[in-house]
């Protein structure tokens, strides 16, 4: 089976600065890939190139067989197939929760109102927020807003979801409720690309871990292999910062049964 998403020798510049350098990465349908790396290494940029919020520079990026660097790419269609959730939710503050969710399905996809509302209702129930349907974003907690933002993307029936540090702006007690939703999607077999600093979550949810630094992919491995036995010194240092891999090698074994 050919990959759903495939970066090949992909480059991205901001002015003179090259922020993505020869990225090779392919993601199969149904796979959950977690992208890790220090701040500024290009994780967000990678995701944003995938739905056209940033323009690519060179190389190749294919989605469902289509080359996205092609000038004729219909980004509106691609964005319906690739949902994106942001760190600070970005719900539309002047619309109710339901209107936030239905804007895309009704105005972009021109779907039947009844059918779209039913799907929205089901998704809201799924994330435990059916009672917030008529609330406005400012009346919700950060965790609730983020779950609504996930529903807003899901209601477009995308093939892939991109999550860019979606719990980074949340109070600690709300992180779990959001991560559980994402974990549920992973369990259902949805294709996910996740940027996160929640290492335990990354380890639990990932089929594969990609470690980036300074615009390059340095490592590419299963979560177990990556977290217990990182190949590069940079990845080791990175993980030590999260005190996940102890500096003492013998302790690694004790951590394994998590």
């Amino acid at each position: 089976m050919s990959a759903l998403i495939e970066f090949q020798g992909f480059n991205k510049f901001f002015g003179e600065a090259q922020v993505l350098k020869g990225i090779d990465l392919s993601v199969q349908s149904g796979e959950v890939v977690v992208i890790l790396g220090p701040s500024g290494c290009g994780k967000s940029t990678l995701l944003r190139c995938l739905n056209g919020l940033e323009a690519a520079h060179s190389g190749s990026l294919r989605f469902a067989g289509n080359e996205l660097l092609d000038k004729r790419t219909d980004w509106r269609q691609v964005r319906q197939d690739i949902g994106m959730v942001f760190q600070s939710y970005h719900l539309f503050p002047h619309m109710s929760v339901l209107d936030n969710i239905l804007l895309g399905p009704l105005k972009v996809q021109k779907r039947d109102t009844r059918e779209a509302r039913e799907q929205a209702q089901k998704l809201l129930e799924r994330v435990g927020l059916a009672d917030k349907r008529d609330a406005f974003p400012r009346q919700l907690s950060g965790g609730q807003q983020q779950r609504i933002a996930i529903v807003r993307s899901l209601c477009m029936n995308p093939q892939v979801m991109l999550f860019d540090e979606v719990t980074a702006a949340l109070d600690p007690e709300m992180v779990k409720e959001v991560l559980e939703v994402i974990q549920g999607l992973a369990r259902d077999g949805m294709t996910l690309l996740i940027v996160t600093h929640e290492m335990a979550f990354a380890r639990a949810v990932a089929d594969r871990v990609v470690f980036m630094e300074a615009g390059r992919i340095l490592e590419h491995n299963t979560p177990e292999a990556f977290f217990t036995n990182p190949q590069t010194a940079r990845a080791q240092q990175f993980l030590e910062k999260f005190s996940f891999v102890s500096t003492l090698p013998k302790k690694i074994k004790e951590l394994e049964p998590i």
Partner: protein
Amino acid sequence: MASSGLELLWVSLPQLGKGAAQTLLISLLSIAFSTLGGVLYGVLRTLGNRLVNVVLRVYLELFRAIPVLVWLYLLFFGLPIFFGLSIPSFWCAVLVLSLWGASEVGEVVRGALYSLPRGQREAGLSIGLSGPQLYGYVLLPQALKRMTPPTINVYTRIIKTSSLAVLIGVVDVIKVGQQIIERTYESVLIYGALFLFFFFICYPLSAASKVLERRWAQA
């Protein structure tokens, strides 16, 4: 004296009313065109196209640097001389006030759009909205609160500035007043009436603008 003054006002009322209607018509048309043009200007300025931005900046600076009166003379007397094109004074006034008003409203709209968090645009795009949908459903509705009070203030300035139209021969409320004064020499009375006319039109507008500003600042 007082009674004869009131009498004079009373008999002049139909005439003054006609002039007032001209003033209001010029103002309303100019306000409508300014609003349309201003929204267009504001949206275009936020698209990030360099050429469009340069052109609009030049337009803005021309209307900021050159007095409305000079524009009126330029178009009313200049166009026939240089291009053999003459516009009736009424429409010349509407044109100049609209172009000037659109630059003022446009800057307000641009500022309001610019102040929105960048994420709103990205969230809108990421669900596949087209450009017009993004502005129509997401960005402009949010900018509305911020831009309404200053836009109303531009409206009052358009109404007041419309009085310059008299200088290219429009028979507006000012001109009618002047004609009555020429006949009757009751300048205090007539100018007093004009004072009240403009005050009672513009004051409620600027008061509304203040109220809205205060109410929406809290929300």
